[in-house]
């Protein structure tokens, strides 16, 4: 590309939070490239200090209104690990249902509300109500299904309230679960149609091999716990996260950038999960993937949308499986408060989420450390853009700008999440 070009998006639309893009190309060379997060920092790690371990999940839920559920589950697991609490299989299953509910609503929001308008030539989903009412209604049905699942298990869709340290204050009724199962079975068609819908989009032909990182277990599709694995052979326990993944501060953004020690930027999220957990996808999800010739590993970041659609199918299948096996008994939730340090990694809709807490003998937080998916992806987004921009020489400035935005939206960044970073070594007084 032998021309000068400036791409500036002051406030990126159809993503969560306040971020901008600034790209300057001069004589075909990228002079400046910034995915800038101007969303103000909220200093969660600072004000969590001194709060009681029983309320940490309730507070971290407020980091993000799109993925409050994984913020709760990660905080709960990290606190439980610090206190030496082992939760029941029932609690694990109910938490999985709740997180899957969150993945479904968040993925549907990204696919239909945030991304689809780009591929269908609209500025938002709202005018699509006229020409694509059936599609919009399908989106609304699926989104409601995810939200209702969270509400059924957690008592409220956004910032659930019944999930607490060592279990749930209220267990859903059997009849309610049966009704949910019925709705899940009915929703399968909508989920299949979603895969068809997304596979009809003309995704840019762009591929860049970067390291993909996700949770994985041998038993089933991992969302709430597992080993941290990567396409470059990383295989570590969650408490080793900080030994392998480090951040650095960049002066133009409130979000820090993550790197794998000795390697570089990496990608987390649906594409990484599908690439690394292909064998654990449900039968139907795999079958649909093969029908649309989706092959793994796939290193086209735009294809995250397709991975997202396949994950919706997988989530519904897994939820049905869990409902069929879960017991619904009142359980003893008592536990002893003690001092300790705990770590946990879970899969938020946008990728792995890390929390760790040091709890004092009074049960209050002494140190908190949170790393969100979007902060982990931030540098990878910039590295993708660095390769994408020179490949768009034949596009007009307007088309090129839109394509850069589309790349950002494929990562489904959650900017509110990303603005809490911490270097703990410096804080001890």
């Amino acid at each position, binding site marked *: 590309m032998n021309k000068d070009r400036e791409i500036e998006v002051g406030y990126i639309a159809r993503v969560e939070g306040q971020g901008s893009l600034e790209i300057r190309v001069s004589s075909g060379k990228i002079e400046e490239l910034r995915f800038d997060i101007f969303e*103000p920092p909220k200093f969660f790690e600072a004000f969590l200090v001194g709060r009681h371990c029983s*309320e940490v999940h309730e507070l971290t839920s407020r*980091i993000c209104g*799109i993925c*409050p559920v994984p913020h709760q589950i990660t905080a709960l697991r990290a606190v439980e690990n610090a206190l030496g609490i082992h939760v029941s299989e029932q609690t694990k299953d109910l938490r999985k249902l709740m997180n899957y509910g969150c993945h479904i609503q968040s993925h549907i929001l990204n696919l239909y509300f945030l991304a689809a308008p780009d591929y269908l030539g609209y500025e938002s989903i709202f005018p699509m109500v006229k020409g694509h009412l059936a599609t919009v209604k399908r989106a609304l049905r699926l989104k409601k299904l995810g939200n209702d699942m969270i509400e059924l298990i957690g008592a409220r869709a956004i910032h659930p309230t019944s999930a*607490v340290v060592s279990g749930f204050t209220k267990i859903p009724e059997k009849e309610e679960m049966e009704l949910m199962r019925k709705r899940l079975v009915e929703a399968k068609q909508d989920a299949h149609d979603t895969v068809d819908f997304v596979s009809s989009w003309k995704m840019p032909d762009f591929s860049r091999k970067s390291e993909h990182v996700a949770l994985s277990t041998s038993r089933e599709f991992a969302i709430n716990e597992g080993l941290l694995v990567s396409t470059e052979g990383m295989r570590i326990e969650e408490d080793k996260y900080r030994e392998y993944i480090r951040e650095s501060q960049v002066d133009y953004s409130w979000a820090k950038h993550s790197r794998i020690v000795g390697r570089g930027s990496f990608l987390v999220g649906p594409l990484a999960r599908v690439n690394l957990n292909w064998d654990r996808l449900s039968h139907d999800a795999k079958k649909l993937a093969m029908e649309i010739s989706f092959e793994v590993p796939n290193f086209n970041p735009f294809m995250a949308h397709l991975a997202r659609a396949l994950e919706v199918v997988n989530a519904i299948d897994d939820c049905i499986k869990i409902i069929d096996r879960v017991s619904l008994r009142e359980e003893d939730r008592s536990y002893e408060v003690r001092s300790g340090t705990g770590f946990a990694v879970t899969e938020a809709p946008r990728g792995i989420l890390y929390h760790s807490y040091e709890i004092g003998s009074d049960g209050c937080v002494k140190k908190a450390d949170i790393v969100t998916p979007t902060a982990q992806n931030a540098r990878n987004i910039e590295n993708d853009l660095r390769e994408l921009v020179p490949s768009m020489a034949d596009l007009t400035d307007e088309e090129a700008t839109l394509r850069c935005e589309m790349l950002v939206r494929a990562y489904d960044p959650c900017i509110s999440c990303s603005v809490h970073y911490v270097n703990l070594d*410096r804080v001890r007084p």
Partner: protein
Amino acid sequence: MADKLKIAVFKMTGCAGCQMEFLRLEEELPFLLEIAEIRYFVMAKRENLRGPYDVSFVEGSVSTPRELEELRELRKQSRIVVAFGDCACHGCVPSILNWVPPDIASKIVYEDYEAIHSRKESYQKICPLDEFVPVDIHLRGCPPHKDTILEVLRSTALDAKPFLRRHPVCVECKLRENVCILTFEKKACMGPVTAAGCGAICPTADRECEGCYGPMSDANSSSLAQQFLKIGLTREDVARKFRKYAGISQAFAPEANAR
């Protein structure tokens, strides 16, 4: 049908949960679009239009000069400004920051805070909207239940005052026929001082209310704090309870500040 209602949705320092609750108007959305035009909503739209707006929903609190400028501008362009959710009404969970000395907070979170701060300003303090501009409607809750969002839209369309409850959660709890968990189980329930609107979700799920709708009108916080001490909470426990969703509100501040 007269002109469509012109709606705007803005985000300041918040978690997007209130905007998500707005988008949880799933069954209602097609009908809503018949009576309303969503002119500004960056999380959902690429073409965002300037005012005037009939009603602006503003999520989040003010924590940077940029946000303050945006707030003052949108106030000029809006007939009705809605403080949309707890952050906008009383600072919510992020307002706990106001009790952390700023230099400690920034050092905990950023290794070299000055390097960013020289380019991007943050007050490191959380302020509700009505510290800066007149607010017409306070839509409480973390998040405000979508039915209350509908109530604001409906009343604005009819040019009426919205019916938003300021009685305590206890009223809703009684309507759900719950046994009082404060009286009978000695759980530290914030229900008696918290504005209704959620439908008493937490006591119904057999746990104490945490006060996420902020203070009811005429809340007797000191009496409830005394009650908490009686059932075994420490003074620090009580301060934490009040210093969570609305610690900077007039009604909760005395207990949130007590030592």
